[in-house]
């Protein structure tokens, strides 16, 4: 621990050279930009800038590219809150309450609490990263296919009804998500499933297309369907003094931010859809323990503060497997791995001993970068909040343009744009009949991973189902899933017995 602190001090001397400070700032700025633009995520941002770093020293290059990744986590919530367009997969959940807050004239408070929560969670995440990286990476290795399966199964059961509206409707949406997730190449035999001879369907349905379609395009279409006069009145324009969160807001957000940080940091160590699980879990926890769960979905600030913090903490802990194992658990870290390799640095078990200055320099730059991002993002709050002053008849077409261009940048695919429009229409219809998009997106992300982990486990165990219950970690998750299913039933029974006894 003491050694880590000493090494970190050396890291700060590396990170605070004028040169490296500049690249840290650059990363933060670019990250914020790609985060704000829907569709354009950290992956595109980092990939675009890798060639620009060829002439740089490895440390400066990684400082900048890592900055883009965690910087994008700050901006991702902006369009979710203002326009109901999730900028990143991680900010789907922020749409639920963030957008409602904006509609009630509280966009400024929502945006500001995102920046503050992101800063707190990001910083806590780096503390964890700098003190505990090697042991945590070893812990992550204990997760084999059976553990993933049980974790995903638990996540699926616990998080399907994340919005807490109708259980039946949520489950219907989740099953639809599972079905959509089966399209593409079979992960075990490599055969085509439901592709109908189309090369584009072979790759499966792009998550971002479904997310932007269901939320962003769907919202625009619902608005278009309303009378023009009602439309302009619906949004409350924020007043100047309401641009920043009140003391009450901060107080209500403090615990959700801390809880979100913890959940996010833990989930970030799990390969795959960590940001999605982290944000959904945080939202679920806040809604469950809230004294006023009915406010969720109506603009509860806890529903913004928690998930946004979880998202940033998950992003920081995702660096642990990259640095210590040299293995990317998330797509943006896969791009970063490439950046490391092209600069002749191989992340992995030898990184800390072979390149101490690079490792600790990058870690130190993250502390600085997170602070820069807070300072950078807060002044933008009034500017972004004022976007809502734009008349809807101008704003809505602009949103569509943003969605179309943003979608194209994800895979340079026109097919994805058509998919997005298709899911936009679906989103419009779902809204009319009060179905939620969130469970569908969750199932779309978890479904394929669940299937692969299940089949892998059984292949490894030669078909023995005991593999799921013989391993302690896996068993714990399965028991938790069962408890989650049975608890509400027990509660109802208990109440009925009591009522019977009383009556």
């Amino acid at each position, binding site marked *: 621990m003491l050694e880590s602190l000493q090494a970190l001090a050396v890291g700060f001397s590396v990170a605070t050279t004028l040169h490296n400070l500049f690249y840290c700032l650059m990363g933060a700025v670019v990250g914020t930009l790609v985060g704000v633009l829907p569709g354009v995520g950290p992956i595109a941002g980092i990939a675009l800038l890798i*060639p620009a770093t060829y002439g740089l020293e490895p440390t400066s290059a990684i400082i900048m590219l890592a900055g883009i990744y965690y910087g994008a986590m700050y901006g991702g919530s902006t369009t979710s809150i203002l326009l109901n367009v999730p900028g990143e997969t991680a900010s789907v959940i922020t749409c639920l309450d963030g957008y409602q807050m904006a509609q009630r004239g509280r966009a400024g408070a929502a945006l500001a609490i995102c920046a503050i929560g992101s800063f707190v969670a990001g910083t806590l995440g780096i503390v964890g990263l700098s003190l505990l990286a090697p042991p945590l990476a070893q812990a992550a290795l204990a997760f084999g296919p059976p553990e993933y399966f049980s974790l995903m199964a638990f996540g699926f059961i616990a998080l399907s009804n994340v919005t807490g509206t109708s259980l039946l409707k949520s489950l219907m949406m989740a099953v639809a998500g599972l079905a959509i997730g089966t399209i593409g190449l079979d992960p075990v035999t*490599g055969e085509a499933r439901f592709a109908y001879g189309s090369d584009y369907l072979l790759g499966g349905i792009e998550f971002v297309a479904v997310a932007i379609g269901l939320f962003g395009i769907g919202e625009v279409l619902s608005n278009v369907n309303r009378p023009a006069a009602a439309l302009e009145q619906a949004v409350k324009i924020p007043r100047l003094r309401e641009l920043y969160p009140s003391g009450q807001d901060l107080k209500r957000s403090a615990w959700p931010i801390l809880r979100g940080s913890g959940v996010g940091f833990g989930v970030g160590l799990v390969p795959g859809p960590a940001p999605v699980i982290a944000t959904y879990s945080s939202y679920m926890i806040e809604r469950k323990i809230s004294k006023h769960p009915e406010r969720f979905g109506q603009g509860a600030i806890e529903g913004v503060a928690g998930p946004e913090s979880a998202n940033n903490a998950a992003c920081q802990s995702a660096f642990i497997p990259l640095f210590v194992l040299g293995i990317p658990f998330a797509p943006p870290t896969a791009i970063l791995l490439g950046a490391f390799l092209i600069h*002749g640095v191989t992340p992995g078990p030898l990184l800390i001993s072979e390149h101490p200055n690079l490792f600790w320099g990058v870690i130190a730059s993250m502390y600085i970068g997170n602070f820069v991002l807070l300072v950078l993002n807060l002044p933008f709050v009034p500017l972004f909040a004022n976007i809502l002053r734009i008349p809807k008849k101008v704003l809505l077409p602009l949103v569509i343009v943003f969605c179309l261009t943003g979608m194209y940048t994800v895979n340079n695919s026109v097919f994805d744009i058509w998919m997005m429009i298709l899911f936009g229409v679906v989103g419009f219809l779902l809204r009319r009949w009060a179905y939620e998009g969130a469970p569908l997106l969750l199932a779309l992300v978890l479904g394929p991973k669940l299937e692969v982990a299940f089949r892998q486990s059984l292949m490894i165990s030669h078909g023995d189902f005991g593999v799921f219950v013989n391993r302690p970690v896996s068993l714990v998750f399965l028991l938790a899933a069962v408890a989650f299913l049975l608890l509400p039933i027990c509660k109802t029974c208990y109440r009925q017995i009591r009522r019977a006894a009383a009556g």
Partner: protein
Amino acid sequence: MLRKMAFICMALALLACPLAMAADFPAKEVQIIVPWSAGGATDLIFRALANTTEKYLKKPVVVVNRPGGGGAVGYTEGSKAKPDGYTLTAAVTPLTILPHNVKTAFTYRSFVPIINVVSDPSMFLVQAKAPWKDLKEFLTYAKQNPGMITVGNSGAGGGVHLVALAFQNAAGVKLNHIPFAGGGPSVTALLGGHINAVVVSPPEGIAHIKAGKLRIIALFADKRLSMFPNVPTVSEQGVPFVMGMWRGLVAPKGTPPAVIKKLHDAFQKGMNDPAFKKNARDMSINLNYLGGADFGKLIADSDAKFGALIKQMKKK
């Protein structure tokens, strides 16, 4: 009469077109379609090569990512591009695998080979503390316990998966093949002890071999790796077997030979550029120059091998 003359003029113009095109090629930027996402090994290699080739081609070389369908989307687009030499495709082993596995709009015959850039041998890795000291012990155990050794690969029907299948045929053993979503997850599962071995191609796993966590138990190369000169190939140990992954550039069928030659010469110079060589060394990839004809032979040979393997795999 007038009509006849116009026809002749047009025919002449059409004939002259490719010639004129070859002479002043390239007149604009050249695109390389990479059928995978940005940041993967193939993407990085061709971005680095594009960077050094620009000065020899005297026009920008731009990498465009068209991921999806395990490469099918990118190859379909690449094969349908105008055969004028301005749209090239990064050809990697799956080009000769996909058409056997699923119905595709292309085969390797839809393309003309330009140059091969990289050939990486595949290999089996096990944990450093695994009970098998060498290939002989590994194979003996596999023979005594058919289907018990679990071998992770980077994707069902993918390149290294088929290499592993081909090796088990060559060595006369039966292994239990577990597909993962990429080389990273399969190596993670080996590190965590959830599987017994993985089949990979460098640079996957190299960092862990250097750190002493994993070791190479079977190397399918024609000669030893310069990085690990103490690791013998499987051929040295009595199982004659060489197989790996290749990465090169192809153009759509019908591209004029003169244009192909110009592209080949420029990319060859780009390959020999010290900056690119350093990039390749840093990434632990094995540069292997092959001209168009030899590359074409390699692709056809690989297509035949994989075709037979997949037929055998599907029969089961």
